[in-house]
């Protein structure tokens, strides 16, 4: 018998064995079907195995519940960090993408030779902001 010849009556036979409710059809099938005979033997063996008493109690569900709450709370606190970084990166990307109009506005306000200084100051401010943000998140994580 191969895997394609699995007996379609197996479930009914197992169920009859578990509930001890047999009928003539199932009884006669069992006598002639080696697959179902094996199934009964396996079900009995597995049933005995599952019924071996345990000497210790399972973990307390309250402990698991509390641990999951703590983990979820710390995850929720952790999420804004990534959101913050994403927001800064997005702002930087937009600034780079829209630099031409920004540059033209600034050029109107300051003389041409000062543009490099403006660019330097903007970069410096962004770098300082990101460093401060990273530092505050690191300190916050350590406190947790």
């Amino acid at each position: 018998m191969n895997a394609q010849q699995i007996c379609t009556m197996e479930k009914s036979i197992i169920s009859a064995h578990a509930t001890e409710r047999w009928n003539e059809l199932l009884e006669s099938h069992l006598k002639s079907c080696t697959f179902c005979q094996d199934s009964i033997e396996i079900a009995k063996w597995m049933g005995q195995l599952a019924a071996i008493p345990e000497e210790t109690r399972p973990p307390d569900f309250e402990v698991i519940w509390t641990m999951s709450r703590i983990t979820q709370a710390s995850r929720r606190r952790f999420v804004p960090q990534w959101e913050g970084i994403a927001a800064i990166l997005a702002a930087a990307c937009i600034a780079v993408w829209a630099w031409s109009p920004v540059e033209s506005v600034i050029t109107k306000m300051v003389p041409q030779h000062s543009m490099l200084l403006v660019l330097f100051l903007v970069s410096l401010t962004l770098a300082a902001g990101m460093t401060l943000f990273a530092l505050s998140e690191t300190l916050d994580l350590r406190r947790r």
Partner: protein
Amino acid sequence: MDHAAFRLFYEKTVPMLRAFVIRSCGSDVADDIVQEAFLRFLQSAPMVKLDEAQMRAYLYRTVESLIVNRWHRRQRDERIMQAANRDTGTLRPDPVAEEMSRAFASLDPRHRTLLWMAYVEGFDHKEIATAAKVGEKSVRVLLFRARQMLMKVIKKQ
């Protein structure tokens, strides 16, 4: 899932799930695995709506993966394995129970899970397929092989 629903589900599910883990890898690590499986379940449960059979299937899948990971770690560390064997040997004073546990633990991890889901939990092939992340046809083939392996073990006893 709220506190009351989890309590109900836990009390209904944990005896058989824990028994499966104990028979698979010994009582010394069973509670760690059970706890980790339920924690993972709770952490992912709010994201998806599952019925009870699917929740149990999820737990068995998690437990199987945790057992396999631990089994690989044990293989790397022979000392721990020997300690575990000593442990399972001393924990069960009933020799029949001990022999059955050893026989079951000697099966391939995937075969153990399939047999347990089919013959202890009473999962149908569709539910087993979901839990094992394989097709229903593959479940038939895998379960057939698992049965053959177990029958060999039972006949040896």
